[in-house]
């Protein structure tokens, strides 16, 4: 009997998904566990696996199209029978059952898209594949210089060095100054394309405003040093990021209004209070920047927070994040401190309402009351906020709470 494959719901807040890539073509049989389709949400690309054996009859949604969760995207049957065109929706057909998605509830995320191109294997050497993984290069975007187009290590290394080209403005592709340029062109990876689309949408659709301030962190750094020096075996190392997360968490707990997001999927929009104290955390991985969520970060004791954050970072770097890891959170902390930058003004993650960009610690002389120079250590913070939810005063109050936590760090040791 013919069944529909529907756009799965891959997370609590997922309402729609982009059909990124079919891994099975019509007529092709598949087995339980085979990846049928790659679906992208605004957070992540997920591989959807079959939960039973069958044969794909036809795909009903083209690649690149966005459809709502639950929409049929393909038809399949156990043995490939029923390949005749399906009756139009609504005309009852005994052969077509109510949507019974063969997709598993917990899809496997595919951090490394299997090197496929147009359903064909991308030829690459074992070394090239290993190197590509190390360098975060997506083999499907490369053209190999070896026999039969085989991708070799040198191709991967060359690709890793090429600057990423700026995507052309979506609305006026013909006028794009880039369109006419000569030079080597390649397709972005699924992940790159997802990120590009999300950030463009966020920057365009969310009314950002920004507040910048410095926090004096001499004490914070001293505390951090003491904590790490005094650490018992097995207790986690506390990093600058962990302390900032803790400060944000304390501020968030004190100002629950910050833990809200704007949902514009309904006409006129809705304000959604999350209230769980989840905090997004930007992590640089070989495959790009990702922002998984530190679950209940606002309420975690410092050492627990450090441990959870370290584990999350580890999973992100190993490509082991799942869709749930991106679920929730109204704010993200993005620490660029290790990169020698004073202020970083960030784009709010889609689906969130603020982001804190953290710069490097600077040693500076500041005048004291008498005008004499005093050595300070300052951390540059920029809070980007969604003006639909924040006004300037509320955002500033929130930022000041964060700063207060950083400047009087013993507070961070108290349970939130």
């Amino acid at each position: 009997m013919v069944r529909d494959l529907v756009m799965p719901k891959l997370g609590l807040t997922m309402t729609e998904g982009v059909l990124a890539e079919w891994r099975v073509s019509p007529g092709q049989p598949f087995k339980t566990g085979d990846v049928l389709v790659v679906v992208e949400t605004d957070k992540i690309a997920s591989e959807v696996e079959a939960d039973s054996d069958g044969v794909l009859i036809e795909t009903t949604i083209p690649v690149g199209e966005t459809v709502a969760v639950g929409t049929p995207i393909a038809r399949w049957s156990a043995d490939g029978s029923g390949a005749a065109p399906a009756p139009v929706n609504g005309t009852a057909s005994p052969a077509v059952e109510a949507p019974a998605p063969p997709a598993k509830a917990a899809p496997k995320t595919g951090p490394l898209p299997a090197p496929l191109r147009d359903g064909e294997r991308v030829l690459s050497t074992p070394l090239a594949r290993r190197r590509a993984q190390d360098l975060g290069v997506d083999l499907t975007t490369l053209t190999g210089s070896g026999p039969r187009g085989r991708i070799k290590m040198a191709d991967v290394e060359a690709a890793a060095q090429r600057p990423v080209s700026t995507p052309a403005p979506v609305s006026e592709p013909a006028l794009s100054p880039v369109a006419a340029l000569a030079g080597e062109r390649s397709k972005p990876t699924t992940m790159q394309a997802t990120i590009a689309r999300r950030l463009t949408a966020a920057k365009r659709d969310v009314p950002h405003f920004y507040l910048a301030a410095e926090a004096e962190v001499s004490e914070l750094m001293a505390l951090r040093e003491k904590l790490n020096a005094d650490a018992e075996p097995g207790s986690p190392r506390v990093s600058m990021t962990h302390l900032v997360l803790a400060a944000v968490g304390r501020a968030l707990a004190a100002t629950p209004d910050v833990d809200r997001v704007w949902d514009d999927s309904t006409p006129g929009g809705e304000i959604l209070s999350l209230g769980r104290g989840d905090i997004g955390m930007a992590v640089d991985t070989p495959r790009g920047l990702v922002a998984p969520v530190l679950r209940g970060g606002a309420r975690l004791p410092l050492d627990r927070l450090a441990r959870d954050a370290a584990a999350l970072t580890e999973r992100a770097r190993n490509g082991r994040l799942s869709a749930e890891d991106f679920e929730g959170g109204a704010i993200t902390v993005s620490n660029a401190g290790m990169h020698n930058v004073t202020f970083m003004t960030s784009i709010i993650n889609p689906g969130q309402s603020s982001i804190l960009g953290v710069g490097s610690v600077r040693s500076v002389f500041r005048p004291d009351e008498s005008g004499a120079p005093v050595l300070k250590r300052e951390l540059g913070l920029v809070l980007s906020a969604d003006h639909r939810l924040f006004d300037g005063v509320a955002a500033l109050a929130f930022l000041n709470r964060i700063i207060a936590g950083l400047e009087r760090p013993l507070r961070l040791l108290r349970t939130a």
Partner: protein
Amino acid sequence: MSKPLRYVNAIAQALSDAMAADPSVMLFGEDVAAAGGPFKATRGLLDTHGPERVRDTPISEASIVGAAVGAALTGMRPVVEIMFMDFVALAMDAVVNQAAKARFMFGGQCSVPMVLRTPHGGGLNAGPQHSQCLEAWFAHIPGLRVVCPATVADAYSLLRASIEAPDPVVFVENKALYALQGDLDVDAPRGIGKARIDRPGRHATIVTYGATLYAARAAADRLAQDGVEAEIVDLRWIQPWDEEAVFASVAKTHRVVIAHEAVQAFGVGAEIAARIASDLFDELDAPVLRVGAPFMPIPFAKSLEAAYLPDADRIVAAVKDTLA
């Protein structure tokens, strides 16, 4: 201590020195004594070591090798010669079922310290029954060691090592190398199973042994003109072969060609290629390639044999293929 001499004389000297060092070493084979050996590899030994320890045998290959096994089991260290490697076919039972298995099947009660010297290789238009390279047969037999020296120095030190080895060694000499000149180092360390980096390089590894070393060198010279630095690993020992050296080189260059004169199919290169594929998969930036003789008995006519034998051209082409 170093002096230049020919490969064939290095063999004779190794035999002579081994006999001087150890009274249990003895030689026998067809025409090895009075005539000094069909290739003169045993010249002079009858005079220096006497007819008891240097003996001519009848043309009885099966019994020559069988007798070596018996002598080895009875306290001697015989070195026997099979005139052409093709003739080991007549002695296979003695090599495979007796020499190789005695220690194992007797529960470790004994060892069989013997050396079977035999020349392989083409280039002399000696035809199908006097040219073949059969080392892979023996490398396949647990209990045997197989060695194939490519240089004068190795001819000496590897033969000394083979004679000192406690187990049967098939010592393969390439006929085409007998006239080769080189330096001898009688004090060089002697060991089993160590390869030698003949020439360092960064871009591709050529694993080889025996006379094919010289084709590999010629190939490396030509590749160097194109800026390709090939590393040559001279295996020396085929059983056991030096995985460590080969793997280290391949891990460095990421490309490998295994070249030998023996028929490529089911050959020594096949084993090495398989091991590289399984153990060094992630290091490979190109398929593992082999250069060996085609699947044909070695033909007689000069023109046919020339087309048959693997040469520098084929090694160059293979290395370039790995770099393509």
